[in-house]
């Protein structure tokens, strides 16, 4: 590696502190990533690995330069950064947003656990029609990441909610369960019985895995995935991929051991 290149690298590594602890960070990495890399835990809710960040729940706030920023999106940009993840102001802000979320989802275990940690409680004076949804939009982002885009956040203000078009069962839903899988409050319910799956008020026929027979995918899902779909359940899919790679010709000049 040339000196110049390593100089560039060097500039991309920043030094600072998190909760007083000296930390190195990659320029542009989020505070959350950086904190996690040294084992400092910051609570998150709307953030999820693999989905584009949205920064709407405000739970992951941290303090820097006397101001609150959200760690899941705030990038580390300068040497000498100093971040507090548990200052009184941070804890109070988290208590505030958790209390507000409890008005919507007073029974969700994930939120109750955090509420306990931060001393947040629901206020009966303000809890109106709790529906167990905190509008974090993880389901919507998962659906968009799949390119199905069957559900969306609609309406504004307090009325904002997740829905299919015109509050009807979403026509583009392929029954993949990604939304239910990423929901932090377990609000997206589905059932499977007699080779059928129900979700979003729609019913889907499940197709058995051609190798082991486990029904995992819906017909619509396989059709939607088109050529990419093998129809294998994840378990068999992984096995097949592994054996394919084992038998593959090594790339010329490269050494790839598995």
């Amino acid at each position, binding site marked *: 590696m040339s000196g110049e290149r390593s100089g560039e690298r060097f500039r991309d590594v920043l030094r600072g502190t998190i909760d007083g602890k000296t930390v190195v960070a990659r320029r542009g990495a989020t505070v959350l990533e950086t904190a996690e890399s040294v084992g400092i835990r910051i609570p998150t809710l709307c953030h999820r690995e693999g989905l584009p960040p*949205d920064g709407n729940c405000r739970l992951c706030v941290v303090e820097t330069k006397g101001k609150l920023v959200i760690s899941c999106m705030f990038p580390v940009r300068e040497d000498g950064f100093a971040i507090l993840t548990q200052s009184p102001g941070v804890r109070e802000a988290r208590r505030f*947003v958790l209390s*507000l979320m409890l008005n919507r989802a007073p029974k969700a275990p994930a939120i109750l656990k955090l509420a306990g940690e931060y001393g947040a409680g629901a*206020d009966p004076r303000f809890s*109106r029609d709790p529906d167990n949804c905190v*509008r974090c939009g993880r389901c919507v982002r998962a659906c968009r990441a799949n390119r199905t885009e069957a559900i969306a956040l609609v309406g504004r*203000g307090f009325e904002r909610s997740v829905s299919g078009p015109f509050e009807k069962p979403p026509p583009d839903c392929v029954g993949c369960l990604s939304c239910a899988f990423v929901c932090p409050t377990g609000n997206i319910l589905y059932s499977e019985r007699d080779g059928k799956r129900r979700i979003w008020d729609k019913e889907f026929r499940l197709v058995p895995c051609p190798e082991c027979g486990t029904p995992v995918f819906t017909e619509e899902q396989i059709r939607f995935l088109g050529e990419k779909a093998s129809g294998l359940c994840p378990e068999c899919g992984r096995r097949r991929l592994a054996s394919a790679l084992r038998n593959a010709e090594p790339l010329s000049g490269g050494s790839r051991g598995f």
Partner: protein
Amino acid sequence: MRFEGPAAVAARREELARKDPDVRTLRVCGGPGCLASGSRELLAALKEAAVASGLDPAKRRISFTGCLGLCERGPLLELDPEGHFLRGVAPSDAAEVVGTALGEGKLVPRLSPNPESPEKESLEFYGPQKRLIMRRFGKIDPESFDDYLATGGYEALVISLFESGPAETLRRVAESGLRGRGGGGFPAGLKWKAMTGAKGTPRYVLANGDEGDPGAFMNRSLMEGDPLAVVEGLTIGAFALGAERGIIYVRNEYPLSVARLEKAIAGARARGLLGENILGTDFSFDLSVTEGGGAFVCGESTALMASIEGREGTPRVKYVRSTEAGLWDKPTVLQNVETWANVPLIAANGPEWFKGIGAKGNPGTKVFSLAGETRNTGLVELPLGTKVGVLVNVVGGGVRKGRRFKAIQSGGPSGGCLPESALELPLDFDHLTEAGAMMGSGGIIVMDDLSCPVDVARYFTGFLAEESCGKCVPCREALPVLREVLSDLTRGSGRKGDTDFLEKQAGLLKETALCGLGQSAANPVLSTIRHFREEYLEHESGYCRSGRCRGLYVPVIDPGACRACGSCQKVCPAGAVGGKKKEKRTVAAGKCVGCGACLKACAFFAIRAERKEHVG
């Protein structure tokens, strides 16, 4: 048609100036207020009368013009070049106005507010004003390109292109200290300088004409009264910033603004003042208009850009400046339309001239809308730093019906309320913010002693709760909580400790919300608590001293002050006022429904709103 260089522009301007000096024009106010009071009908009637009277249409003209300001007395007229100002002109006056004013250049005294001195500048409403942004309102037909040119239009662009160059143009704007007129007052120069180092093409300049504040019409008046000033400002900005594309984002409820701007753009393009090789130089720039997404929050910068990109107009978390990654992630400078309209003035006259107007750190003028309880209301342009008291007592002519001034609400829905001491406050970005209000878009509402600060906070918080996009937890969930507590307080179901609770919640909302809407949504609550805490505490225990919150007071007539006029008795819908003719009146507390009609009706201020418990 196309101007190939600066000489052609100057020649055309001279040609326009040489035109028949005998031309006289009736300029009918086409501002939002006068349109609402019937100036379109008036214009039609005047044109009809002119045809009937056989005046030469080339020499005796009638046209719309930008907002003349004293909206409340509309429809308004100005006679050019005599400068006679007429108010409250009805279509039935058309024949006389055409005959006397347009035909002979004489005053119609009964339509003049001040026949001794018939120019509008003689009125106290206009006295302290300095109309820079509004300088062409009343002087030009906003749809006429020639009128713009004849009144000095495009002088500034010529100076920028052929004398200053981009760096000097940028320096002028930066040195001038011009601050954003859309609310925050951020120095435009800092934003512009940040763009110089940015990478990526194309670069964009955007104008924010979304104007979502309820009742606001300053930006609309500008876009409809002098659209080319915005276009020229953007063109100069683009030249200084190296931008190739510009977009004016206009509130979707402003079809006339859209039409006028589009006409202005087409006119400029046809003359080679937009498009490829402007005035024969190698500077190319073009502009278009986009209609807004129809929500208050669409005026917020990230939501505005999302909306232009064709996505839902909701704000995004951004820790990168728009000058680095704005519209389509390209370097972008967004300014309010009024900010842009200041640019030609600065580019032509230089920063020292601009700094000579207004106050230190707050140069220039600002257009305000004055509403509420003053005698005069309307659209006002003042040097920044003018005392609030001048606006209220001189321009506004004091509080109506001799009532007592109580507060101003400044800055639109997310602004704040300031108490009587505010009369001494200079109207500028810093003093307003320091006092807990803000400049916002320049909306000023004057409140008298019958206005209740808790109720005002409830109203604006309710508006903001409706307008919250609902994306982030604090704004979506806390605004309804604040609204509920405020409603409880104004309905008499408030609880002890509510004031502290509100203050705490609003403070946290400010710190945690995602965008400016939520962050500033705390202002109505925080500012009213800061300046009127005592009244909040009174509401906790069920008392509204302003006599505004129904059921939270009983009117008591002071026998010493009562002149036995009986006006309270006449207006009371419940028959709660007792007493015979020529006798001092009394209120039967048991019968009172708490509507407050008597409080408003009493010309002698003899009626107080008393605590219920204090009245037998």
